[in-house]
């Protein structure tokens, strides 16, 4: 925290209410096609303007607060629906609303032929709303609300074209995998209630900052809290072992993949960890766990991306791998590097996805890069945008990916030594290789299918966001340049003034830093060149050896999960349904109605329909009553 807290009240809830209004309007009223997209874009843009206004308050203020209202109270559990904004979150706010606006604009054109546009834009605005709640809430319960909200929107949008069984299944897979992760968030909430007595972020931070109170806690509390939050982050941000949903999430429309599954939602795990950084900073063992999990994710996903043929799948595995980089930075104790990469990745990965969407649109929904080729001439703008995206993600000098990835690699070298650095560098090389593989297969050489021959460039409404994102991808990196280049470290300032100070480690000397930078640059350039040599003439008929099969089939992780987790559950489910449902519940029901039927059948013997027999029975009854009353 900064030394002098300068807390300013600000109307933060308005930023959230604007897209919420868009979600309602589009959800309730049937607007004309295009109009609904433009409405959603306008509201998202207004939220962006408001975010800029709040952002500009920051040199004077250190924290913006909107007290909100008391949502509910149960015992000593208090949930305040309030909002607060720290400097680093305000940057994230700009990304969510700014990149969000560009993607809304793009989607307006992309979805213009879809029959349920209103539903789409309603979901998309609802997503922005939930993401803002997640980012802005001052209380962990509010954060959890947003956390679940983005999960629901992700589910709705992945399964947007639910007529196809495959898409609906992908949505369910994403939702259920995320639920497994959400368990961690709940555990963290329970720990917060039980031991901190509060769930507000600032309340927890005060608790941690007070050495007396922190020492009074059992040793394991903070460890469990941190691990639980990390588990939740694994679910949302697609880390081992819960990353499996993200590649399948590509079943959704491409703007959704760009906004939710690349730029914003998947980074929310990192955002929450950076917000709660003072807790993580004290837990070195947890940071070690985070680092190695992240490193394995980055490597494994990069290996899987090497052989994929679906353009969006390549980008999806690349996203998992890049998220691994961000977590590796957290594991190395450098929240600045992680957040810096969140922002640069949001720019270039949104760009890559939107360009992929443009290519797929031009190819009439053909996603196989082996069937593309030669699109450079036919789609010059998309080609330019994709090239910029590839250059940025591969970390060519002076692009945004260069700065952020270099910072991560340096921090990892400082705190985790040569082994961690070497493995992460390998992942970076693979990144450069598979990205340029997809680039050359898509754009160079000649057309390899009928669709590729007749591909057409997309409309201006789709190209303009691509160009803006290209500019961002090239330039954002200059906001945080290496120390030896000068004093221009905005991201360090933003993150550290929000209370997330890096874990103290030994700083490497400038000479070492130059060498590391040189190694990384040469590595990425060399991998790109290798991809050029291998794929400039089109796809290589792969010798289907063991390693290739392993990568192409994603290391059989889905199959392993299926046979070791899903199958036993299915077995338990089946036997429960047979024993409890069939024999227990159904048996009781069938038994009870059978007993009623038998009683009825017995009684209906006396219902002969003849008046005289009824009268006889009445007489008999009277006699019995008389007998009972008088004889007994």
């Amino acid at each position, binding site marked *: 925290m900064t030394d002098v807290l300068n807390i300013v009240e600000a109307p933060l809830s308005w930023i959230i209410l604007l897209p919420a209004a868009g979600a309602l309007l589009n959800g309730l009223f049937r607007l004309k096609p295009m109009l609904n997209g433009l409405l959603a874009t306008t509201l998202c843009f207004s939220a962006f303007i408001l975010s800029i206004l709040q952002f500009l308050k920051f040199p004077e203020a250190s924290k913006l607060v909107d007290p909100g209202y008391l949502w509910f109270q149960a015992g000593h559990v208090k949930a305040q629906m309030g909002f607060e904004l720290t400097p680093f979150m305000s940057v994230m706010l700009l990304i969510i609303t700014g990149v969000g606006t560009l993607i809304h604009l793009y989607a307006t054109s992309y979805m213009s032929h879809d029959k349920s546009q209103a539903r789409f834009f309603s979901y998309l605005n609802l997503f922005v709303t939930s993401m803002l709640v997640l980012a802005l809430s001052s209380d962990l319960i509010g954060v959890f609300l947003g956390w679940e909200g983005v999960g629901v929107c992700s589910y709705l949008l992945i399964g947007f074209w639910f007529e196809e069984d495959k898409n609906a299944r992908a949505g369910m897979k994403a939702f259920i995998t995320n639920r497994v992760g959400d368990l961690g968030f709940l555990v963290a909430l329970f720990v917060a209630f039980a031991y901190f007595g509060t769930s507000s972020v600032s309340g927890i931070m005060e608790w941690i900052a007070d050495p007396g109170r922190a020492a009074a806690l059992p040793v394991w509390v903070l460890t469990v809290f941190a691990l639980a939050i990390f588990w939740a982050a694994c679910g949302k941000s697609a880390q081992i072992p819960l990353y499996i949903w993200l590649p399948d999430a590509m079943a959704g429309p491409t703007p959704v993949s760009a906004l939710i599954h690349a730029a914003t939602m998947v980074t929310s795990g990192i955002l929450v960890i950076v917000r709660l950084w003072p807790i993580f900073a004290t837990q070195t063992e947890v940071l070690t766990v985070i680092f190695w999990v992240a490193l394995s994710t980055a490597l494994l996903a990069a290996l899987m991306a090497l052989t994929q043929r679906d353009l969006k799948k390549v980008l999806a595995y690349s996203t998992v791998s890049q998220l691994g980089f961000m977590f590796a930075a957290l594991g190395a104790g450098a929240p600045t590097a992680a957040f810096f990469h969140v922002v640069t990745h949001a720019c270039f990965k949104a760009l890559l996805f939107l360009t992929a969407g443009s290519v797929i649109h031009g190819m009439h929904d053909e996603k196989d890069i082996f069937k593309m080729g030669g699109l450079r001439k036919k789609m010059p703008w998309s080609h330019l945008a994709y090239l910029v995206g590839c250059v940025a993600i591969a970390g060519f000098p002076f692009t945004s990916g260069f700065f952020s990835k270099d910072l991560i690699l340096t921090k990892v070298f400082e705190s985790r030594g040569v082994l961690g650095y070497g493995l992460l560098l390998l992942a970076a090389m693979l990144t450069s290789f598979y990205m340029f593989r997809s680039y050359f297969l898509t754009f160079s050489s000649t057309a390899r299918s009928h669709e590729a021959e007749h591909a057409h460039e997309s409309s201006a409404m789709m190209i303009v966001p691509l160009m803006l994102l290209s500019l961002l991808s090239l330039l954002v990196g200059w906001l945080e340049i290496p120390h030896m280049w000068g004093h221009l470290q905005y991201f360090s300032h933003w993150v550290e003034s929000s209370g997330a100070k890096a874990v103290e480690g030994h700083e490497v000397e400038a000479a070492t830093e130059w060498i590391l930078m040189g190694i990384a640059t040469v590595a990425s350039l060399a991998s790109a060149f290798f991809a050029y040599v291998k794929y400039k003439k089109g796809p290589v008929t792969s010798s289907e050896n063991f390693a290739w099969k392993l990568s192409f089939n994603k290391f059989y992780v889905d199959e392993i999960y299926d046979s070791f987790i899903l199958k036993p559950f299915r077995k338990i489910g089946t036997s429960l349904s047979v024993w409890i449902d069939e024999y227990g519940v159904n048996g009781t029901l069938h038994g009870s109605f059978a007993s009623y039927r038998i009683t009825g059948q017995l*009684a*209906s013997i*006396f*219902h*002969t*329909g*003849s*008046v*005289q027999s009824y*009268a*006889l029975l009445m*007489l008999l009854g009277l006699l019995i009553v008389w007998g009972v009353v008088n004889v007994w």
Partner: protein
Amino acid sequence: MIAAGQLIFSVAIFLFCFGALTFFTKRSAVVALMGIELMLNGVNLVLVQAGQIYKNAEGTSLVLFVTLVAAAEAALALSIFVILYRKYGTLTLENFRSLKG
């Protein structure tokens, strides 16, 4: 020699039993109705005699009500018989079994 009171009670019981027997055994609806009327008269006789014994008018006045209801009942039943006969062409009780469960 039987006392007059006892004789009247015996006649009443005879009337009731005879009426009940008629109602249970006869196949024609009209005769069954006559059986019901007989039972009613038996009861009326008991009421009147009981009033004589206890020296008050309650029993006797109740008979007036019973007679009234019996008249209404006879009118209703006879008109139902007319309708039944028009519709089914018979008044034999075995033919009317639509209440069978």
